């Protein structure tokens, strides 16, 4: 699964720590999600999507679409 988190964060000029604070997770969690090493839980994915005013499926993209 890929995601647009790094691009969206960069557009707003936020650091990983700042974004982490906004959605209530650690800097490490944001870093791991951006690098694709960790997939967020559904509640966190919705929090991130709400923050960037996007749908979850617009932020998180499947590698193997049906």
């Amino acid at each position, binding site marked *: 699964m890929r995601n647009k988190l790094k691009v969206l964060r960069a557009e707003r000029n936020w650091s990983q720590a700042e974004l982490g604070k906004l959605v209530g997770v650690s800097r490490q969690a944001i870093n791991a999600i951006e690098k694709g090493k960790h997939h967020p839980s559904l509640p*966190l994915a919705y929090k991130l999507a709400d923050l960037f005013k996007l749908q979850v499926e617009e932020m998180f993209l499947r590698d193997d679409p049906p």
Partner: protein
Amino acid sequence: MDSSDTNYQARANIGVGASLGAVIGALIAELLSDSSLVVILGAVLGAGLGAAVGSRLRSQAPQFLWIEYPREVGRRLILSVSAFLALFIPSIYSIKAGATLALQILLLSATSISGLVLILIIGTIISQLDDLLRKIQLEAIAIGFGLSAFIVLTLGLLGLAIPIRSNPLLTFIIMLASWLLGRLVVAWRYR
């Protein structure tokens, strides 16, 4: 992260480093010698070394080793570990010094209860962490459990063939070291 958070993390790293260092130092000294003075020296040396490592962790360690736990989580962990240590060390000395049976039972009971409280607090803390930090801790515990079970079993089997100086504290050191190793491995994986 603002400067108060950074200062807090630096203090927490020193506190956790000193506490862990004191325990490891005291336990290793206790394995090597029966002298109380050596154990105290081991604890002091371990605390100093742990504090030094903790104070350097923030500025010089690779970034993947920085785990920034929420302030309240760090505070509760340091308080519960300190309370456990404050009872654990005197209870060992009460046995070594040949204190009255009543005092030994009192101290050992208090240590056991504080150990139980520590386990409950660690469980609560893990459940309150975010997705990734919880995953890191649980994977580290799983690796630590598997590795320590393997080492203890191997030592036990080896003990059947050749005499090994038995010490119940050795198991604790092996568990602690295995968890630390697991923690490093998992932190590297999610760096």
